[in-house]
């Protein structure tokens, strides 16, 4: 049932050329598929023939070259994918590090930022509110942030 009617090709040609045989006419009387096909065949045939010749097709050499260039880009993307993944991971680690550090000592950092004068800083450090390990962590995270930033800028260039 899924196949086209076996007379369909003949019906299409007959409809396009308006040359009907008695056998095809008889068949057409009982085949809805062929009636539908015949009702559009002449128009489709004319539609196919309307000229496209004035249209210039793209040059195959250009298409070949573009495809090869695109292929190069795809290959490069594939090769740098692991690197991008590591970079993404580094961004996440640094962001998480900053978040953890600030959450850990937020109240002290807030106090320190509010009293951000040379004497105020001395007071906070002198009182031992922020340890040396805290400043070491800040230094490490700041260095990583700068390195990642520089890497992103250089990679863009």
């Amino acid at each position: 049932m899924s196949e086209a009617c076996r007379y369909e090709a003949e019906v299409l040609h007959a409809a396009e050329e308006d040359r009907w045989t008695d056998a095809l006419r008889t068949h057409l009387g009982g085949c809805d598929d062929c009636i539908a096909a015949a009702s559009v065949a002449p128009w489709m045939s004319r539609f196919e023939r309307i000229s496209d010749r004035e249209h210039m097709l793209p040059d195959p050499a250009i298409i070949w070259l573009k495809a090869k260039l695109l292929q190069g880009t795809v290959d490069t993307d594939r090769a740098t994918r692991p690197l991008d993944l590591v970079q993404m991971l580094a961004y996440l680690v640094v962001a998480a590090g900053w978040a953890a550090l600030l959450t850990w000592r937020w109240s002290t950092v807030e106090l320190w930022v509010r009293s951000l004068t040379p004497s105020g800083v001395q007071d906070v450090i002198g009182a031992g509110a922020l340890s040396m390990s805290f400043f070491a962590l800040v230094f490490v995270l700041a260095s990583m942030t700068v390195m990642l930033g520089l890497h992103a800028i250089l990679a863009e260039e």
Partner: protein
Amino acid sequence: MTMLAAMTLPAHLLAEARSRSGKPDPMEEGRFEMFYRRNAGGLWSYLFRMTGDPATADDLLQKAFFQFIRANPALASEEHMRRWMFRTATNLALDHFREAKRDRGYAEKNRRSEAGPAPEPREVLRHDMMKTFAELKPRERALLWLAHVEEADHQDIGEALGVKSKSVKVLLFRARKRLGELLTKKGLAPEVSR
């Protein structure tokens, strides 16, 4: 396309044709050019009738051939490659319509492109026919073109449109009915004698 090639050739020929890396040898530019010159015209006509816009047809044609080259179809027969191209072109055209539907500016752009100096009679005829065809759904256009112009069988049409070949008969019947109704409405339908 490797899959396509695998379907086309017997296993021993396939193994013979593979290079040391295990990948099929790439298609040469000369062979591509020959294939392009034989098939690009028909494919462009199909895309142009589907989209109604020469620039879009150019764009989709290039995309289809980019995919073709990337798919590395060196081992497939010409007929297989041609069918593959029509399937890819159909998918690209249907994707284009989905994107265009989302893009609100599309209708505006089409409206603008219709404006211009008065066309020649042949142009008027083409314009009218294109307009009539454009009233059909993209899938109906593809069905009619593949069946009537490419003379593709139901299995090939089904593959091109991503539907079961069993459904093609019904879909094609409906598409023909729809076009028939449009032609009748415009007074262009032929008399079909029973």
